[in-house]
């Protein structure tokens, strides 16, 4: 059920976006890919794969330590989620091992390629 309602939302948003054709092609492409993946339900598949890989290589723990440090820096009572995200996201991206990144990229590429030339 949730899958269909998700799709529905994605379709609705795409209907909205169809009205803005003057945007840059790349942005549209990204959005289209996101839409497509969400509609097909394959995004969850990739997410699960990435999650497994990142846990395997200890990235999650590293990121947790980063978050903890940020929270301690700012004080538990003053910190907000946005602040933590702002602080941690760039570091988190850098911390992801290249092998994981490459593997995921390759998989997405082949997936998109298959979809495109079906």
């Amino acid at each position, binding site marked *: 059920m949730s899958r269909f309602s998700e799709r529905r939302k994605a379709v609705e948003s795409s209907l909205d976006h169809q009205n803005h054709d003057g945007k840059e*092609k*790349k942005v549209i*492409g990204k959005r*289209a890919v996101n839409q497509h993946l969400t509609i097909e339900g394959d995004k969850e598949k990739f997410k699960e794969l990435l999650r497994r890989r990142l846990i395997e290589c200890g990235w999650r*723990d590293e990121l*947790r330590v980063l978050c*903890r440090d940020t929270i301690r820096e700012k004080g538990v009572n003053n910190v907000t989620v946005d602040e933590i995200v702002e602080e941690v996201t760039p570091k988190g*991206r850098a911390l992801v091992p290249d092998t994981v*990144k490459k593997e995921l990229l390759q998989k997405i590429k082949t997936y998109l390629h298959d*979809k495109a030339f079906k």
Partner: protein
Amino acid sequence: MDAEVSEKKLPDMLSSEEMDALESINRRFQELMSDPEILNEAANFLVEDLIDEMTIGVVFEVHRSAKLGVLDPEADMSGEDISKFKIVDDPGLDVFGQPPVIKKFQDCICPSCNRGLAASRFAPHLEKCMGMGRNSSRIASRRIANNSKETSAAMSEDEDDEWTIGGDRRKKKRDRSNGNTKKPTKSLKVDRRNGDSNSSFGGSVSESLGSSSGNNASFDATSAALEAKRPDERRTLLSNICGVVSEHTRKLCTRSLRCPQHTDEQRRALRASVLVDETNFQSEIPEIQVNVESLGLDPDDLLSGLGGGVGSFSGVGVGSLSRGSWETERSNASSPADSVSVSSSTSSKKREKSSPGKSSNHKKKSKHSSSHEL
């Protein structure tokens, strides 16, 4: 697209308008993906997006635990520390990873006698060792009753009725029981106790001497109390009381012959040891005289000195003399002679320290012991 076909049967169905939109999206997607540059771009974007999502997931998690106050205790434990406290799930081990202890022996040390013993035996031991508790007080009251009875019956010339056998007699008994059924742990204790009893033996001898010469009746006149008696007295005494030597108080059991605390075997063993001593003592007497004579002393002189020194208690003096010879005989007879010789030498020393009134008496004894050493 078969997914779309199956979709139509579900209540969450898309309207025809939406279906059109979906198709247009698909078309556009395929259009876009045919451009490899856009595909690459999109894939990169997707990867970043997924990573960001994961990051946000972690951030939410940590933020939540921080706000709930769970974070700090967690933070104190780094990875290695946690592994120490993990519950072990191996077969044969408990949750702490330790092998099960089959039987834990807890040793208590008795504050009164400094002996180590198992915790389960501690309370009964304390009852006996300190003379407290129900049973002990009962024994004590009975002993008091016996005491008054015996003194009125004039059973003993000494006023004490706490019979204790120290020194090598105990050792003999122990050795005998060692031979039968004694655990190796107990034999250790026996050795130590023998050492103790040897010293107490010397003391008790001097005390018994004092009492026999009429100075005072010592209540603690222990080992020699029974030994100081003449054989017939000993026999009458043993025919009236149980007489088994207690392990803890080292005293004779003064209860009736059928006292439930001791077995017939124990009684028999004690009587056997006493009787053996007696018979040996009788054969010993001439030997003593020979020894004395061989030392160049006048027996008559000695005897008169004995009579004068002890005075009206000459019978007692003879008794103690006989005790001395008996003791010497035992030192001859007992097989582990090392501790025995120590005890006899201490006792002879003690005798020398005693009052000068009995000088001839000790002289004889010390001579006697020296002759024994010859």
